[in-house]
Protein backbone atom coordinates (compact mmCIF):
# COMPACT_ATOMS: atom_id res chain seq x y z
CA UNK A 1 0.00 0.00 0.00
CA UNK A 2 1.15 3.50 -0.81
CA UNK A 3 0.15 6.27 1.57
CA UNK A 4 0.81 9.94 0.77
CA UNK A 5 0.97 12.23 3.78
CA UNK A 6 0.10 15.84 3.01
CA UNK A 7 -1.05 18.98 4.73
CA UNK A 8 -1.27 22.22 2.75
CA UNK A 9 0.08 24.30 5.60
CA UNK A 10 3.66 23.62 6.59
CA UNK A 11 4.70 22.43 10.03
CA UNK A 12 1.51 20.57 10.90
CA UNK A 13 3.35 17.29 11.50
CA UNK A 14 3.61 15.56 8.10
CA UNK A 15 7.07 14.26 8.82
CA UNK A 16 6.15 13.17 12.36
CA UNK A 17 3.27 11.08 11.01
CA UNK A 18 5.16 9.76 7.95
CA UNK A 19 8.28 8.71 9.81
CA UNK A 20 6.31 6.94 12.53
CA UNK A 21 3.99 5.13 10.11
CA UNK A 22 7.05 3.79 8.30
CA UNK A 23 8.78 2.93 11.58
CA UNK A 24 5.95 0.70 12.87
CA UNK A 25 5.67 -1.29 9.65
CA UNK A 26 8.27 -4.01 9.02
CA UNK A 27 9.97 -3.73 5.64
CA UNK A 28 8.43 -0.39 4.71
CA UNK A 29 9.75 2.31 2.41
CA UNK A 30 9.82 5.96 3.44
CA UNK A 31 10.15 8.53 0.65
CA UNK A 32 10.80 12.16 1.47
CA UNK A 33 9.35 14.24 -1.37
CA UNK A 34 9.73 17.56 0.43
CA UNK A 35 12.90 18.06 -1.59
CA UNK A 36 13.26 21.72 -0.61
CA UNK A 37 13.36 20.87 3.08
CA UNK A 38 13.92 17.11 3.43
CA UNK A 39 13.80 16.36 7.14
CA UNK A 40 12.89 12.67 7.41
CA UNK A 41 16.58 11.78 7.26
CA UNK A 42 17.17 13.79 10.45
CA UNK A 43 14.96 11.27 12.25
CA UNK A 44 16.14 8.02 10.67
CA UNK A 45 19.77 9.19 10.83
CA UNK A 46 20.90 6.70 8.21
CA UNK A 47 24.53 5.69 8.26
CA UNK A 48 25.33 3.83 5.06
CA UNK A 49 23.90 6.11 2.43
CA UNK A 50 24.15 5.59 -1.30
CA UNK A 51 23.71 8.72 -3.36
CA UNK A 52 22.25 9.08 -6.79
CA UNK A 53 22.91 12.35 -8.53
CA UNK A 54 19.95 14.03 -10.21
CA UNK A 55 20.92 15.80 -13.39
CA UNK A 56 19.00 17.90 -15.87
CA UNK A 57 19.85 18.71 -19.47
CA UNK A 58 20.73 22.13 -20.75
CA UNK A 59 21.76 23.13 -24.24
CA UNK A 60 25.25 23.95 -25.50
CA UNK A 61 25.76 25.66 -28.85
CA UNK A 62 28.49 24.78 -31.29
CA UNK A 63 29.70 28.14 -32.59
CA UNK A 64 31.09 26.70 -35.83
CA UNK A 65 27.70 25.26 -36.83
CA UNK A 66 25.43 28.07 -35.59
CA UNK A 67 24.31 30.38 -38.40
CA UNK A 68 22.63 32.85 -36.05
CA UNK A 69 19.10 32.22 -37.37
CA UNK A 70 17.60 32.75 -33.88
CA UNK A 71 15.06 29.95 -34.30
CA UNK A 72 16.07 28.52 -30.91
CA UNK A 73 15.82 31.88 -29.13
CA UNK A 74 12.42 32.55 -30.65
CA UNK A 75 11.19 29.09 -29.75
CA UNK A 76 12.20 29.09 -26.08
CA UNK A 77 9.13 29.96 -24.01
CA UNK A 78 11.03 30.18 -20.76
CA UNK A 79 13.31 33.06 -21.77
CA UNK A 80 16.28 30.84 -21.07
CA UNK A 81 18.03 31.83 -24.29
CA UNK A 82 19.17 35.28 -25.34
CA UNK A 83 20.97 36.39 -28.43
CA UNK A 84 24.24 38.13 -27.60
CA UNK A 85 26.82 39.06 -30.25
CA UNK A 86 25.41 36.85 -33.03
CA UNK A 87 25.10 33.75 -30.88
CA UNK A 88 22.58 32.22 -28.51
CA UNK A 89 23.54 32.20 -24.82
CA UNK A 90 21.78 29.98 -22.28
CA UNK A 91 20.81 30.69 -18.67
CA UNK A 92 20.88 27.13 -17.32
CA UNK A 93 18.90 27.96 -14.12
CA UNK A 94 15.97 29.19 -16.19
CA UNK A 95 16.05 26.33 -18.71
CA UNK A 96 13.25 23.76 -18.35
CA UNK A 97 15.17 21.09 -20.32
CA UNK A 98 12.38 20.69 -22.87
CA UNK A 99 14.83 20.03 -25.72
CA UNK A 100 12.97 22.44 -28.00
CA UNK A 101 16.02 24.47 -29.07
CA UNK A 102 17.85 21.36 -30.15
CA UNK A 103 14.75 20.20 -32.04
CA UNK A 104 14.18 23.41 -33.98
CA UNK A 105 17.83 24.09 -34.91
CA UNK A 106 18.13 23.46 -38.67
CA UNK A 107 21.92 23.14 -38.46
CA UNK A 108 22.37 20.60 -35.71
CA UNK A 109 24.32 23.15 -33.67
CA UNK A 110 22.67 22.32 -30.35
CA UNK A 111 23.69 19.46 -28.13
CA UNK A 112 22.78 18.79 -24.53
CA UNK A 113 24.90 18.76 -21.42
CA UNK A 114 23.98 17.73 -17.90
CA UNK A 115 24.16 19.66 -14.69
CA UNK A 116 23.38 18.45 -11.20
CA UNK A 117 20.36 19.89 -9.38
CA UNK A 118 20.20 17.55 -6.40
CA UNK A 119 20.57 14.00 -5.11
CA UNK A 120 18.43 11.11 -4.02
CA UNK A 121 19.82 9.40 -0.94
CA UNK A 122 19.00 5.81 -0.18
CA UNK A 123 19.70 3.69 2.88
CA UNK A 124 18.34 0.89 5.01
CA UNK A 125 17.84 1.72 8.60
CA UNK A 126 16.32 -0.72 11.12
CA UNK A 127 14.17 -2.41 8.51
CA UNK A 128 13.01 0.79 6.82
CA UNK A 129 14.19 1.75 3.35
CA UNK A 130 14.77 5.48 3.61
CA UNK A 131 14.73 7.55 0.42
CA UNK A 132 15.35 11.30 0.52
CA UNK A 133 15.11 13.67 -2.41
CA UNK A 134 17.38 16.65 -1.75
CA UNK A 135 17.31 19.74 -3.97
CA UNK A 136 20.44 21.91 -4.22
CA UNK A 137 19.90 25.38 -2.71
CA UNK A 138 19.51 27.99 -5.44
CA UNK A 139 17.62 25.64 -7.79
CA UNK A 140 14.10 26.75 -8.65
CA UNK A 141 12.45 23.46 -9.55
CA UNK A 142 12.42 20.41 -7.35
CA UNK A 143 10.42 18.33 -9.84
CA UNK A 144 13.36 16.36 -11.34
CA UNK A 145 14.57 15.36 -7.86
CA UNK A 146 11.06 14.52 -6.73
CA UNK A 147 10.41 12.33 -9.78
CA UNK A 148 13.67 10.46 -9.23
CA UNK A 149 12.80 9.87 -5.55
CA UNK A 150 9.35 8.59 -6.50
CA UNK A 151 10.89 5.88 -8.68
CA UNK A 152 11.52 4.06 -5.40
CA UNK A 153 7.83 3.53 -4.63
CA UNK A 154 7.70 -0.12 -3.65
CA UNK A 155 5.33 -2.57 -5.35
CA UNK A 156 5.01 -4.64 -2.21
CA UNK A 157 4.67 -3.67 1.43
CA UNK A 158 4.07 -0.21 2.72
CA UNK A 159 5.42 2.95 1.08
CA UNK A 160 4.95 6.23 2.92
CA UNK A 161 5.30 9.34 0.75
CA UNK A 162 6.10 12.44 2.81
CA UNK A 163 4.80 15.25 0.55
CA UNK A 164 5.87 18.88 0.30
CA UNK A 165 3.58 21.53 1.83
CA UNK A 166 1.24 23.59 -0.31
CA UNK A 167 -0.98 22.48 -3.16
CA UNK A 168 1.16 23.11 -6.24
CA UNK A 169 2.49 20.76 -8.92
CA UNK A 170 4.97 19.03 -6.60
CA UNK A 171 2.14 17.93 -4.30
CA UNK A 172 0.02 16.58 -7.16
CA UNK A 173 3.00 14.63 -8.45
CA UNK A 174 3.78 13.09 -5.03
CA UNK A 175 0.21 12.30 -4.05
CA UNK A 176 -0.62 11.04 -7.53
CA UNK A 177 1.38 7.87 -6.85
CA UNK A 178 -0.56 6.96 -3.72
CA UNK A 179 -3.51 4.65 -3.06
CA UNK A 180 -4.48 6.66 -0.04
CA UNK A 181 -3.99 10.26 1.08
CA UNK A 182 -3.55 11.05 4.73
CA UNK A 183 -4.10 14.71 5.56
CA UNK A 184 -2.40 16.10 8.64
CA UNK A 185 -4.22 19.18 9.88
CA UNK A 186 -3.84 21.68 12.66
CA UNK A 187 -7.04 22.90 14.31
CA UNK A 188 -6.42 26.60 13.76
CA UNK A 189 -7.86 29.10 11.30
CA UNK A 190 -4.63 28.87 9.27
CA UNK A 191 -4.53 25.10 9.36
CA UNK A 192 -8.19 24.84 8.37
CA UNK A 193 -7.91 27.14 5.36
CA UNK A 194 -4.99 25.17 3.89
CA UNK A 195 -6.59 21.86 4.86
CA UNK A 196 -9.63 22.69 2.71
CA UNK A 197 -7.32 23.54 -0.20
CA UNK A 198 -5.48 20.25 0.02
CA UNK A 199 -8.74 18.33 0.48
CA UNK A 200 -9.95 19.80 -2.80
CA UNK A 201 -6.72 18.62 -4.40
CA UNK A 202 -7.14 15.09 -3.09
CA UNK A 203 -10.75 15.09 -4.28
CA UNK A 204 -9.57 16.19 -7.72
CA UNK A 205 -7.11 13.29 -7.76
CA UNK A 206 -9.98 10.97 -6.78
CA UNK A 207 -8.05 9.44 -3.88
CA UNK A 208 -9.59 8.06 -0.71
CA UNK A 209 -8.50 10.10 2.28
CA UNK A 210 -8.60 10.51 6.02
CA UNK A 211 -7.37 13.12 8.46
CA UNK A 212 -5.07 13.23 11.46
CA UNK A 213 -5.65 16.28 13.65
CA UNK A 214 -2.37 17.25 15.25
CA UNK A 215 -1.75 19.61 18.18
CA UNK A 216 -5.40 19.13 19.05
CA UNK A 217 -5.27 21.27 22.17
CA UNK A 218 -7.26 24.22 20.93
CA UNK A 219 -10.88 23.55 20.15
CA UNK A 220 -11.78 24.45 16.62
CA UNK A 221 -15.08 22.80 15.85
CA UNK A 222 -15.42 24.20 12.35
CA UNK A 223 -12.81 21.72 11.14
CA UNK A 224 -14.61 18.69 12.54
CA UNK A 225 -17.91 19.93 11.15
CA UNK A 226 -16.29 20.28 7.74
CA UNK A 227 -14.95 16.71 8.00
CA UNK A 228 -18.39 15.40 8.92
CA UNK A 229 -20.10 17.27 6.10
CA UNK A 230 -17.58 16.02 3.57
CA UNK A 231 -17.40 12.51 4.99
CA UNK A 232 -13.70 12.68 5.76
CA UNK A 233 -12.92 10.22 8.56
CA UNK A 234 -10.94 11.69 11.46
CA UNK A 235 -8.58 8.78 12.07
CA UNK A 236 -6.52 10.13 14.93
CA UNK A 237 -6.16 13.16 17.15
CA UNK A 238 -2.77 13.93 18.62
CA UNK A 239 -3.08 16.32 21.54
CA UNK A 240 -0.32 18.84 22.04
CA UNK A 241 2.16 16.75 23.99
CA UNK A 242 5.36 18.22 25.39
CA UNK A 243 7.03 14.82 25.19
CA UNK A 244 6.29 14.48 21.47
CA UNK A 245 7.37 18.09 20.90
CA UNK A 246 10.69 17.68 22.66
CA UNK A 247 11.50 14.25 21.15
CA UNK A 248 10.64 15.60 17.70
CA UNK A 249 12.80 18.67 18.29
CA UNK A 250 15.69 16.31 19.07
CA UNK A 251 15.10 14.23 15.93
CA UNK A 252 13.83 11.16 17.76
CA UNK A 253 11.22 8.78 16.36
CA UNK A 254 8.54 8.78 19.06
CA UNK A 255 7.22 5.29 18.29
CA UNK A 256 10.70 3.88 18.90
CA UNK A 257 11.07 5.69 22.18
CA UNK A 258 7.76 4.80 23.76
CA UNK A 259 5.51 1.79 23.08
CA UNK A 260 2.46 3.97 23.76
CA UNK A 261 3.18 5.99 20.62
CA UNK A 262 4.02 2.88 18.61
CA UNK A 263 0.55 1.50 19.41
CA UNK A 264 -1.00 4.81 18.39
CA UNK A 265 0.60 4.70 14.95
CA UNK A 266 -0.05 0.97 14.47
CA UNK A 267 -3.71 1.65 15.13
CA UNK A 268 -3.68 4.49 12.61
CA UNK A 269 -2.11 2.25 10.00
CA UNK A 270 -4.71 -0.45 10.61
CA UNK A 271 -7.53 2.07 10.23
CA UNK A 272 -6.13 3.07 6.86
CA UNK A 273 -5.88 -0.56 5.86
CA UNK A 274 -2.13 -1.03 5.81
CA UNK A 275 -0.35 -3.70 7.79
CA UNK A 276 1.73 -2.92 10.82
Amino acid sequence: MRIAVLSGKGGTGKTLVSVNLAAVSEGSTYIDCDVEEPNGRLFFKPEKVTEKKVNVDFPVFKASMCKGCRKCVNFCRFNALVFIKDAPVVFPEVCHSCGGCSFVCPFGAVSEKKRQVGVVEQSNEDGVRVISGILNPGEASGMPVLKEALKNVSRTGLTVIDCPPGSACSVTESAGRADYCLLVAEPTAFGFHNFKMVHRLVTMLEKPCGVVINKADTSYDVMKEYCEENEIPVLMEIPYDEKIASMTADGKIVSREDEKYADMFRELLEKIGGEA
Partner: protein
Amino acid sequence: MKKILILSGKGGTGKTTVAAAFIRFSHAQALADCDVDAPNLHIITELDVEPQTSEFMGSQRAKIDYDKCAGCGFCSYTCKFEAIKHEKGRYVVDQNACEGCGVCTQVCQEGAITLHDDVAGELSLYSGDRIFSTAELKMGRGNSGKLVAEVKNAMVNAAPDADIAIIDGSPGIGCSVISSVSGVDLVLIVTEPSVSGLSDLERIMKTAEIFQAKAAVCVNRYDVSEEHTAEIEEYCTEHNIPFVGKIPYDSQTSQAINEGISVADVDCPAHTALEEVYKNTMNLL
Protein backbone atom coordinates in the same frame (compact mmCIF):
# COMPACT_ATOMS: atom_id res chain seq x y z
CA MET B 1 9.91 51.69 -0.05
CA LYS B 2 11.70 49.36 2.36
CA LYS B 3 10.54 45.80 1.84
CA ILE B 4 10.78 43.23 4.63
CA LEU B 5 10.16 39.62 3.63
CA ILE B 6 9.36 36.96 6.23
CA LEU B 7 10.65 33.47 5.38
CA SER B 8 11.35 30.31 7.32
CA GLY B 9 12.62 27.40 5.25
CA LYS B 10 10.65 24.94 7.36
CA GLY B 11 6.89 25.39 7.29
CA GLY B 12 4.77 26.19 10.31
CA THR B 13 7.37 28.05 12.33
CA GLY B 14 5.23 31.17 12.58
CA LYS B 15 5.94 33.31 9.49
CA THR B 16 2.41 34.63 9.21
CA THR B 17 2.12 35.27 12.95
CA VAL B 18 5.30 37.35 12.81
CA ALA B 19 4.20 39.10 9.60
CA ALA B 20 0.83 40.05 11.13
CA ALA B 21 2.52 41.44 14.23
CA PHE B 22 4.99 43.44 12.13
CA ILE B 23 2.07 44.88 10.17
CA ARG B 24 0.49 46.17 13.41
CA PHE B 25 3.74 47.55 14.83
CA SER B 26 4.85 49.27 11.65
CA HIS B 27 1.46 50.50 10.41
CA ALA B 28 2.77 49.43 7.00
CA GLN B 29 0.76 50.75 4.07
CA ALA B 30 1.81 47.96 1.72
CA LEU B 31 1.29 44.26 2.45
CA ALA B 32 1.64 41.12 0.39
CA ASP B 33 1.18 37.39 0.88
CA CYS B 34 3.56 35.48 -1.37
CA ASP B 35 2.68 32.03 -0.04
CA VAL B 36 0.55 31.50 -3.13
CA ASP B 37 -0.16 27.80 -2.70
CA ALA B 38 -1.16 28.10 0.95
CA PRO B 39 -2.03 31.77 1.60
CA ASN B 40 -3.12 32.74 5.12
CA LEU B 41 -2.32 36.36 5.82
CA HIS B 42 -5.81 37.51 4.73
CA ILE B 43 -7.29 35.60 7.68
CA ILE B 44 -5.78 37.99 10.20
CA THR B 45 -5.62 41.15 8.14
CA GLU B 46 -8.57 43.46 8.65
CA LEU B 47 -10.00 44.13 5.24
CA ASP B 48 -13.05 46.27 4.92
CA VAL B 49 -13.09 46.46 1.15
CA GLU B 50 -13.78 43.94 -1.56
CA PRO B 51 -10.68 42.95 -3.52
CA GLN B 52 -10.10 43.70 -7.14
CA THR B 53 -9.42 40.29 -8.66
CA SER B 54 -7.65 39.33 -11.85
CA GLU B 55 -6.74 36.10 -13.54
CA PHE B 56 -3.18 34.86 -13.40
CA MET B 57 -2.02 33.43 -16.68
CA GLY B 58 0.60 30.74 -16.19
CA SER B 59 2.49 28.99 -18.97
CA GLN B 60 0.40 28.01 -21.94
CA ARG B 61 -0.90 24.46 -22.21
CA ALA B 62 -0.95 22.07 -25.16
CA LYS B 63 -4.29 21.02 -26.64
CA ILE B 64 -4.85 18.20 -29.11
CA ASP B 65 -7.39 18.55 -31.91
CA TYR B 66 -8.71 15.00 -32.23
CA ASP B 67 -10.15 15.67 -35.68
CA LYS B 68 -6.57 16.05 -36.89
CA CYS B 69 -4.70 13.67 -34.55
CA ALA B 70 -3.51 10.52 -36.33
CA GLY B 71 -2.61 8.82 -33.06
CA CYS B 72 1.06 8.34 -33.94
CA GLY B 73 2.18 9.10 -30.38
CA PHE B 74 5.28 11.00 -31.41
CA CYS B 75 4.24 13.92 -29.17
CA SER B 76 4.07 11.61 -26.17
CA TYR B 77 7.45 10.12 -27.03
CA THR B 78 9.21 13.50 -27.31
CA CYS B 79 7.59 15.22 -24.31
CA LYS B 80 10.26 15.58 -21.62
CA PHE B 81 7.63 16.19 -18.94
CA GLU B 82 5.70 12.94 -19.52
CA ALA B 83 2.68 15.16 -19.97
CA ILE B 84 1.08 13.32 -22.91
CA LYS B 85 -0.32 9.97 -21.94
CA HIS B 86 -2.15 7.27 -23.81
CA GLU B 87 -5.53 6.83 -22.17
CA LYS B 88 -8.61 5.02 -23.43
CA GLY B 89 -7.37 4.77 -26.98
CA ARG B 90 -6.15 8.31 -27.46
CA TYR B 91 -3.39 10.71 -26.44
CA VAL B 92 -4.32 13.08 -23.62
CA VAL B 93 -2.46 16.12 -22.27
CA ASP B 94 -2.06 16.14 -18.50
CA GLN B 95 -2.79 19.82 -17.75
CA ASN B 96 -0.78 19.76 -14.54
CA ALA B 97 2.30 18.12 -16.02
CA CYS B 98 2.41 20.21 -19.24
CA GLU B 99 4.88 23.08 -18.98
CA GLY B 100 3.87 24.70 -22.25
CA CYS B 101 7.26 24.34 -23.95
CA GLY B 102 5.66 23.81 -27.36
CA VAL B 103 7.84 20.92 -28.52
CA CYS B 104 4.77 18.78 -29.24
CA THR B 105 3.36 21.45 -31.55
CA GLN B 106 6.58 21.20 -33.56
CA VAL B 107 6.82 17.43 -33.76
CA CYS B 108 3.19 16.80 -34.74
CA GLN B 109 3.08 16.11 -38.48
CA GLU B 110 -0.69 16.65 -38.59
CA GLY B 111 -0.60 20.11 -36.98
CA ALA B 112 -3.03 18.77 -34.41
CA ILE B 113 -1.46 20.38 -31.35
CA THR B 114 -1.68 24.06 -30.42
CA LEU B 115 -0.88 26.01 -27.28
CA HIS B 116 -3.56 27.82 -25.32
CA ASP B 117 -3.55 30.32 -22.48
CA ASP B 118 -4.10 28.78 -19.10
CA VAL B 119 -5.56 30.44 -16.02
CA ALA B 120 -3.28 29.18 -13.27
CA GLY B 121 -4.53 31.26 -10.36
CA GLU B 122 -6.20 34.41 -9.16
CA LEU B 123 -4.69 37.65 -7.89
CA SER B 124 -6.55 39.77 -5.34
CA LEU B 125 -5.73 43.38 -4.56
CA TYR B 126 -7.36 45.08 -1.57
CA SER B 127 -7.11 48.88 -1.75
CA GLY B 128 -8.61 50.28 1.45
CA ASP B 129 -6.74 52.41 3.95
CA ARG B 130 -3.72 50.35 2.89
CA ILE B 131 -2.75 48.04 0.06
CA PHE B 132 -2.85 44.27 0.47
CA SER B 133 -1.84 42.07 -2.44
CA THR B 134 -2.43 38.32 -2.37
CA ALA B 135 -3.13 35.42 -4.71
CA GLU B 136 -4.16 31.82 -4.84
CA LEU B 137 -2.52 29.40 -7.22
CA LYS B 138 -4.88 26.98 -8.92
CA MET B 139 -4.53 23.52 -7.46
CA GLY B 140 -1.70 21.45 -8.81
CA ARG B 141 -0.33 24.18 -11.04
CA GLY B 142 3.30 25.21 -11.42
CA ASN B 143 4.54 28.74 -12.15
CA SER B 144 4.30 29.82 -8.53
CA GLY B 145 7.48 31.88 -8.96
CA LYS B 146 5.85 33.91 -11.70
CA LEU B 147 2.71 34.44 -9.59
CA VAL B 148 4.81 35.58 -6.62
CA ALA B 149 6.48 38.19 -8.84
CA GLU B 150 3.05 39.44 -9.94
CA VAL B 151 1.80 39.67 -6.34
CA LYS B 152 4.79 41.84 -5.40
CA ASN B 153 4.48 44.00 -8.50
CA ALA B 154 0.78 44.58 -7.85
CA MET B 155 1.64 45.75 -4.32
CA VAL B 156 4.41 48.11 -5.43
CA ASN B 157 2.31 49.60 -8.23
CA ALA B 158 -0.67 50.21 -5.98
CA ALA B 159 1.31 51.69 -3.08
CA PRO B 160 4.25 53.53 -4.63
CA ASP B 161 4.52 55.98 -1.71
CA ALA B 162 4.48 53.47 1.16
CA ASP B 163 7.56 53.65 3.39
CA ILE B 164 7.42 50.09 4.63
CA ALA B 165 6.15 46.92 2.96
CA ILE B 166 5.67 43.68 4.89
CA ILE B 167 5.69 40.54 2.75
CA ASP B 168 4.77 37.09 4.02
CA GLY B 169 6.69 34.37 2.18
CA SER B 170 6.31 30.66 1.61
CA PRO B 171 8.16 27.71 3.13
CA GLY B 172 10.92 25.93 1.23
CA ILE B 173 13.79 27.20 -0.90
CA GLY B 174 12.43 26.71 -4.44
CA CYS B 175 10.93 28.92 -7.12
CA SER B 176 8.39 30.81 -4.93
CA VAL B 177 11.05 31.64 -2.37
CA ILE B 178 13.65 32.65 -4.94
CA SER B 179 11.11 34.86 -6.66
CA SER B 180 10.00 36.46 -3.38
CA VAL B 181 13.58 37.30 -2.35
CA SER B 182 14.32 39.43 -5.40
CA GLY B 183 14.31 43.16 -4.68
CA VAL B 184 13.61 43.02 -0.94
CA ASP B 185 15.69 45.00 1.56
CA LEU B 186 15.72 42.44 4.35
CA VAL B 187 14.71 38.83 4.82
CA LEU B 188 13.65 37.90 8.34
CA ILE B 189 13.88 34.16 8.87
CA VAL B 190 11.59 32.72 11.52
CA THR B 191 12.89 29.37 12.70
CA GLU B 192 12.11 26.93 15.50
CA PRO B 193 14.41 25.16 17.93
CA SER B 194 14.56 21.64 16.48
CA VAL B 195 16.89 19.56 14.32
CA SER B 196 14.55 20.25 11.39
CA GLY B 197 14.46 23.98 12.10
CA LEU B 198 18.25 24.21 12.11
CA SER B 199 18.73 22.09 8.98
CA ASP B 200 16.16 24.15 7.09
CA LEU B 201 17.70 27.38 8.36
CA GLU B 202 21.04 26.34 6.88
CA ARG B 203 19.39 25.61 3.53
CA ILE B 204 17.46 28.90 3.40
CA MET B 205 20.62 30.82 4.39
CA LYS B 206 22.52 29.20 1.50
CA THR B 207 19.70 30.24 -0.82
CA ALA B 208 19.70 33.81 0.54
CA GLU B 209 23.46 33.95 0.05
CA ILE B 210 23.24 32.77 -3.58
CA PHE B 211 20.73 35.52 -4.33
CA GLN B 212 22.64 38.05 -2.22
CA ALA B 213 19.80 38.85 0.14
CA LYS B 214 20.46 40.46 3.51
CA ALA B 215 19.01 38.23 6.23
CA ALA B 216 18.30 38.19 9.98
CA VAL B 217 17.06 35.35 12.17
CA CYS B 218 14.61 34.98 15.05
CA VAL B 219 13.49 31.84 16.91
CA ASN B 220 9.83 31.16 17.60
CA ARG B 221 8.66 28.95 20.51
CA TYR B 222 12.25 29.05 21.75
CA ASP B 223 11.34 27.53 25.13
CA VAL B 224 10.36 24.22 23.48
CA SER B 225 14.10 23.54 23.43
CA GLU B 226 16.55 26.03 24.92
CA GLU B 227 19.35 23.70 23.81
CA HIS B 228 18.44 23.92 20.10
CA THR B 229 17.83 27.66 20.48
CA ALA B 230 21.41 28.01 21.73
CA GLU B 231 22.60 26.00 18.71
CA ILE B 232 20.77 28.36 16.35
CA GLU B 233 22.22 31.42 18.09
CA GLU B 234 25.67 29.87 17.79
CA TYR B 235 25.12 29.17 14.09
CA CYS B 236 24.14 32.81 13.56
CA THR B 237 27.18 34.13 15.43
CA GLU B 238 29.49 31.86 13.45
CA HIS B 239 28.03 33.02 10.15
CA ASN B 240 27.67 36.70 11.08
CA ILE B 241 23.90 36.63 10.72
CA PRO B 242 22.10 39.19 12.92
CA PHE B 243 20.05 37.39 15.59
CA VAL B 244 17.05 39.59 16.36
CA GLY B 245 15.34 37.73 19.17
CA LYS B 246 13.35 34.81 20.47
CA ILE B 247 9.63 34.41 21.03
CA PRO B 248 8.20 32.08 23.70
CA TYR B 249 5.54 29.42 23.13
CA ASP B 250 2.30 31.14 23.99
CA SER B 251 -1.07 29.44 23.75
CA GLN B 252 -2.63 32.87 23.23
CA THR B 253 -0.99 32.98 19.80
CA SER B 254 -3.17 30.29 18.22
CA GLN B 255 -6.17 31.59 20.14
CA ALA B 256 -5.64 35.03 18.60
CA ILE B 257 -5.33 33.51 15.12
CA ASN B 258 -8.59 31.61 15.56
CA GLU B 259 -10.30 34.86 16.48
CA GLY B 260 -8.89 36.45 13.35
CA ILE B 261 -6.69 38.91 15.19
CA SER B 262 -2.96 39.36 15.52
CA VAL B 263 -1.02 38.47 18.64
CA ALA B 264 -0.01 42.14 18.56
CA ASP B 265 -3.57 42.97 19.64
CA VAL B 266 -3.30 40.80 22.76
CA ASP B 267 -1.30 41.57 25.88
CA CYS B 268 0.81 38.42 26.27
CA PRO B 269 4.46 37.28 26.51
CA ALA B 270 4.67 36.55 22.77
CA HIS B 271 3.54 40.13 22.05
CA THR B 272 6.34 41.62 24.20
CA ALA B 273 8.96 39.39 22.56
CA LEU B 274 7.71 40.22 19.07
CA GLU B 275 8.00 43.94 19.78
CA GLU B 276 11.66 43.40 20.63
CA VAL B 277 12.17 41.35 17.43
CA TYR B 278 10.48 44.12 15.47
CA LYS B 279 12.68 46.86 16.96
CA ASN B 280 15.87 44.90 16.32
CA THR B 281 14.81 44.13 12.76
CA MET B 282 13.99 47.75 11.95
CA ASN B 283 17.40 48.81 13.23
CA LEU B 284 18.96 46.70 10.49
CA LEU B 285 17.22 48.56 7.68
